[in-house]
């Protein structure tokens, strides 16, 4: 390489470069190299001199460097360095046509390199930190965004306050419930925006955020709290307030979460009302009356002041129902209720005991006062003047009175006495009143009840009861899933009696176990026969609580089940929810049900929803199916409360993994509504009336 060529290329470069011949003589040095020697020109000198090398050491290096065009690293002393460190160099050979030269490049010294390396490492460390910081900020940003979206879309109302209880933010639900926009509310004291009162006393309620901030803990709202919105609307709410804390535990503010429970509360009240009241007349129902009667009996035993029960049975009501229809019958019942309500005192209890039967519990009355009130009631009923479609209807009733004094034994006995007295009144020509006397039991009882009891026993002994079967349809595929087995009884003249006319009597007189056992035996026989013929016939069979509470009857039932040879899943027992199934018997009933369920028999809870203890039964008894009381189903299309009830029952059933049956499905509109609600099975006249022999059928 020519010196000029080298300098042309090397002078502009920042690296210190030398051009050497193979003996180590410096042929040229670029400007950077001259600077390295503080301006001294090295040309003409030997590298051995510059780098303090000599002899074999120099020769070896020169030989090695000259062997390859690849830069060979090395370390050399000198080159004007102040320290004793050797300079790092690299040397490569360049060959042209005739000669081979060496080019030496001085590399940055090692301490510089170390500093540079340290600097690089520091830079890399800071870059990594910066990247981490960026990533953290990004994650924080995303988390914040997510939290805000969650807050905005959450179903509960949320208000955040600062440590002084002033509103900072609120979500749309909170805006809608308080009537304040988040912007307007921001900075306002919470009390201004969140105006709450006790819904009962109407007094201002204490603000949970104030307490939460003062006590530094989660605080719930008192019961019966109502929120008054900015526009005056009132919502019943439930809420809680929780402190927001910094990482060091310092309280920064509070989060108030609340929700509108107005609907729930109304439904709850409605449910409570339904449990004790008659759906049609809105006066107390039989269950509540019996409870009150029992209480009156207990009080009467210790009290000098007697009380009385009136058993009111409307005369010829069935005729009205049969000739003018149920709607007119219902209207007449309402008119009767109004008339009776006017005659009872505040402390008395008026209840509808059944179809056309009413009961009145009179407090602090003796026999003559009770009679007087009874007579007033008869007169009031006679005064009922009710018109429908141009026909006038009047009411008349037979009233039986039983005194509740120190000798009263229990509610059932008082009820029986009043019932007998009522029968005597009816027998004496109707529209009459009769005071119970002990002699009535032998007279009236022998005439009516004893006759009925004898009839039942006779029918049991002679297989004289009849069975009819009503289809229960599975909504999912509209197939008949099974039939409910229903009992039919005729009187001596062959006239069919409605179950309502003899079942309550049979219950009162302890005849249900025998009747149930008869039905079970018949139904089992039928199922087995069909099964043997290859036509499985799933049936549901009613079992009264009285039967399940009777250990002898349970033993017989167990024996029947033991002998039953068809698949048990073809049998579904419907437990009629009844006061006869006392809580004391619940345990043994549950054990028995578990035993049968373990063998494959199924259980349904009948008439669910009307009784106060429905939910308790559901908790204790292992049932597969809940049968919604027809009283809720019949008016489901027009009655929002009934609809809410059915919906709630279905929700409860679903969450417990149980199936639902709705009875009293009397028309397509009811069916459509039940389909919409999601009931599993339906039963009623619209789908099939009780018939003698079940035939496979489907509904459209």
């Amino acid at each position, binding site marked *: 390489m020519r010196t000029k060529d080298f300098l042309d290329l090397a002078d502009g470069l920042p690296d210190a470069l030398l051009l050497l011949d193979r003996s180590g003589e410096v042929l040229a040095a670029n400007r950077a190299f001259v600077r390295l020697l503080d301006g001294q020109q090295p040309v003409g000198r030997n590298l051995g001199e510059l780098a303090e090398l000599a002899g074999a050491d120099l020769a070896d290096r020169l*030989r*090695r460097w*000259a*062997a*390859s*065009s*690849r*830069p*060979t*690293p090395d370390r050399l002393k000198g080159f004007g360095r102040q320290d004793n460190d050797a300079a790092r160099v*690299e040397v490569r*050979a360049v*060959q*042209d*046509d005739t000669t*081979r030269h060496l080019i030496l490049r001085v590399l940055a010294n090692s301490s510089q390199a170390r500093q540079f390396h340290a600097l690089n490492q520091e830079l890399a460390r800071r870059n990594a930190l910066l990247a981490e910081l960026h990533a953290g900020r990004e994650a924080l940003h995303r988390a914040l965004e997510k939290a805000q979206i969650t807050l905005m879309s959450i179903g509960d109302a949320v208000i955040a306050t600062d440590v002084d209880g002033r509103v900072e933010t609120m979500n749309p639900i909170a805006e809608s419930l308080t009537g304040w926009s988040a912007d307007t509310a921001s900075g306002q004291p919470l009390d201004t925006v969140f105006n709450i009162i006790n819904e009962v006393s109407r007094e201002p309620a204490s603000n949970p955020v104030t307490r939460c901030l003062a006590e530094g803990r989660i605080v719930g709202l008192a019961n019966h709290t109502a929120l008054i919105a900015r526009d005056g609307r009132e919502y019943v709410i439930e809420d809680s307030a929780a402190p927001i804390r910094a990482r060091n535990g310092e309280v920064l503010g509070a989060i108030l979460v609340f929700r509108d429970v107005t609907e729930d509360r109304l439904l709850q009240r409605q449910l409570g009302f339904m449990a004790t009241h008659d759906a049609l007349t809105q006066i107390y129902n039989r269950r509540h009356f019996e409870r009150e009667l029992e209480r009156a009996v207990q009080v009467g035993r210790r009290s000098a002041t007697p009380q009385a029960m009136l058993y009111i049975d409307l005369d010829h009501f069935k005729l009205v129902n049969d000739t003018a229809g149920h709607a007119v019958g219902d209207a007449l019942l309402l008119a009767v209720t109004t008339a009776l309500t006017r005659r009872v005192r505040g402390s008395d209890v008026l209840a509808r005991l059944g179809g056309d039967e009413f009961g009145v519990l009179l407090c602090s009355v003796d026999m003559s006062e009770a009679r007087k009130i009874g007579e007033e009631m008869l007169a009031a009923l006679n005064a009922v003047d009710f018109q429908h479609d141009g026909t006038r209807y009047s009411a008349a009733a037979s009233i039986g009175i039983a005194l509740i004094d120190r000798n009263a034994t229990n509610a059932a006995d008082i009820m029986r006495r009043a019932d007998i007295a009522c029968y005597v009144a009816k027998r004496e020509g109707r529209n009459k009143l009769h005071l119970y006397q002990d002699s009535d039991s032998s007279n009236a009882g022998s005439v009516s009840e004893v006759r009925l009891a004898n009839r039942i026993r006779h029918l049991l002994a002679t297989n004289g009861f009849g069975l009819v079967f009503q289809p229960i349809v599975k909504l999912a595929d509209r197939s008949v899933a099974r039939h409910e087995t229903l009992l039919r009884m005729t009187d001596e003249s062959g006239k069919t009696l409605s179950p309502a006319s003899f079942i309550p009597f049979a219950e009162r007189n302890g005849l249900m176990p025998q009747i149930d056992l008869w039905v079970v035996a018949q139904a089992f026989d039928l199922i087995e026969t069909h099964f043997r013929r290859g036509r499985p016939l799933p049936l549901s069979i009613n079992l009264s609580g009285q039967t399940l509470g009777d250990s002898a009857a349970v033993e017989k039932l167990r024996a029947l089940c033991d002998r039953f040879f068809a698949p048990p899943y073809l049998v579904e027992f419907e437990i009629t929810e009844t006061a006869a199934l006392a809580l004391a018997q619940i345990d043994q009933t549950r054990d028995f049900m578990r035993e049968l369920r373990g063998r494959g028999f199924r259980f349904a809870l009948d008439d669910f929803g009307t009784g106060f203890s429905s939910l308790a039964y559901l908790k204790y008894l292992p049932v597969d199916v809940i049968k919604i009381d027809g009283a809720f189903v019949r008016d489901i299309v027009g009655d929002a409360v009934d609809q809410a009830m059915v919906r709630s029952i279905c929700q409860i059933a679903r969450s417990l993994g149980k199936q639902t049956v709705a009875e009293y499905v009397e028309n397509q509109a009811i069916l459509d509504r039940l389909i919409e609600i999601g009931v599993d099975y339906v039963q009623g006249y619209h789908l099939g009336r009780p018939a003698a022999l079940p035939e496979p059928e489907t509904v459209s």
Partner: protein
Amino acid sequence: MPADAASLDLPLERDLFLRQLLRELAGTLEDIVGHDEAAGFISIVGQNIGRWIDDAYCQAWGQERLDRNQVAAVLVDLKRRIEGDFHLISVTPDEIVLGNRRCPFGDKVRDRTSLCMMTSNVFGTLAAENLGYGRVILHETIAAGAPGCRVTVRLKRDPDTSEGIEYFGD
């Protein structure tokens, strides 16, 4: 549990140890001084080894210098002796082309391309010492992830190319 360390079943033996050692040395060099400088250091080692091998073959053959075919044969043989699997693809007056299926460093060469300077320098030094000149071009290497190596040793100078590394005889 075996009674003593000597009876443990370990893949540790001298050859593997040395190869692993070289891998670690090359890796440390590459990490600390950078790939190019590491390759420079390894080049020095390669040159020295190249001369040592050259001396050994010359002495064994009883010749001061080897001819082209001998050089080609030595390139293959030396690799065979150190458990490489080089073979001659072609030998012409201008170049020797070699292929390789197995690196003497074994799988320890992977991602240690600075170790290829050993081959370049040994081949280049052998060519330069015996034939006066060698330009070694590593077309493909196992170290860089290729299934095999392909190496050309050009024996004639070509001022118009900068490919590969030139080696010069004395």
